[in-house]
């Protein structure tokens, strides 16, 4: 998933980075709408041109996005081959998937996670929003804990970690210990927050600022095409 790479990209200073997070959500919704309803290669191509422009405006890291966008291709290829009646339809389906993936990746690569989740804060229960935020932090804690644990086990066992991975009991123990240490670390953070008066709503303070024009303007073309198609 390369969350750390996405985090780094989101801290950039491109024109889309400076736009308002809510506007970028609307832009993403527009792109997804256009991608999902692209009924011909030409329509998919036109949506791709606008998305490419958005990716360029997202600043550095287009190649990272390209690499990340390839990840769901394997999953999508299986579904495309199974469900699409012909190769042409399968290719169109894959193009739609890629357009959709690029749409969400551009959002997440130009918006810090706190802002991405902050937009959702008024729409979801406070516990869920705080849970989302803590989960994001916990992913890195778990990864670090797992890495340290495997390193320690490798050093103590004196063999490569692959040998340990073949031992199911060792694998379960390592997973359980990582999980437990993450939970305990989270509990300590939570206690500290409670001592400071925390009672849900970590993300209640919304980030303000940023323009609407660029994201809305970008999504106008594909959304307009979808609307025109419906009206015809």
């Amino acid at each position: 998933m390369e969350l750390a790479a996405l985090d780094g990209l989101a801290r950039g200073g491109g024109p889309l980075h400076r736009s308002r997070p809510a506007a970028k959500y609307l832009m993403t919704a527009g792109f997804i709408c256009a991608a999902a309803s692209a009924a011909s290669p030409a329509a998919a191509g036109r949506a791709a041109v606008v998305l490419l422009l958005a990716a360029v405006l997202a600043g550095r890291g287009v190649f990272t996005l390209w690499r990340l966008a390839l990840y769901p291709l394997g999953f999508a290829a299986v579904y495309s081959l199974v469900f699409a009646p012909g190769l042409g339809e399968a290719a169109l389906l894959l193009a739609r998937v890629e357009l959709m993936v690029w749409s969400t990746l551009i959002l997440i690569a130009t918006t810090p996670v706190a802002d991405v989740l902050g937009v959702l804060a008024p729409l979801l229960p406070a516990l869920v929003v705080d849970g989302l935020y803590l989960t994001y932090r916990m992913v890195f804690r778990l990864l670090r804990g797992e890495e340290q644990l495997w390193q320690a086990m490798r050093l103590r066992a004196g063999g490569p970690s692959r040998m340990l991975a073949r031992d199911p009991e060792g694998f379960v123990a390592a997973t359980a210990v990582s999980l437990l240490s993450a939970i305990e670390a989270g509990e300590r953070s939570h206690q500290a927050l409670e001592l400071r008066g925390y009672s849900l709503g970590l993300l209640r303070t919304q980030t303000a600022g940023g323009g609407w024009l660029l994201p809305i303007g970008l999504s106008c073309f594909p959304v307009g095409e979808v609307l025109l198609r419906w009206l015809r």
Partner: protein
Amino acid sequence: MSHLHLPDGLLPWQVLVAGWALLLVMLHIAGRRTSGPAARRKLPEFAALAAAMLLAMAVPLGPLPIHLNLGALAGILLGPWFGAMAVFTANLFMALVGHGGITVLGLNTIITGSEPVVAYWCYRLLGTRLSRPVAAGIGTLTALSLSSYAAVGVLAAAGHAEHWLDRVPAQVFGLTAPLGMAAGALPLILLVACVEAALTAGLVAYLARLRPGLLADR
């Protein structure tokens, strides 16, 4: 396992809207059921399990488009409502990085969110007669099988069965479309469900020794 990973634009919009409507209802109920200071103290556990699910879902098992979910474990440790919210959290992050469509998020969460609910109740019911790890393993196996068949059922009901039937040996079995799809997917579903059931049983055994208070029935 039952995570659909379907791209946007494949399923009919009625199915997607129904999925989102069900998701909003589920989140609303879950939000009400998990309010209060006692529930708030579960937040770190909830976050750790959602993060573990996120990591498990991001790692495909070999070349096959399948992975572990840990949704059943979330149900056994957190209870059904917190478990379902953990599933939503993991699915949302996955959708944001392009793994599974945004429009399918509702459907994905409803189907995968059934795993903690089923696993929790199986674990509760069987836990009085069997040992905890065995109850957890059986609960996980049941939950994963049901949710995987629910996913297959959604695909069949969405009208894609005829293309599938051209490619899998459903005709050999001589079954109708949904049953044929289910039969075709059976070996894969059972394989992954068994692996995850064994892992969940092992984790429950380990956690029951180290910190029994973490289990939802304590």
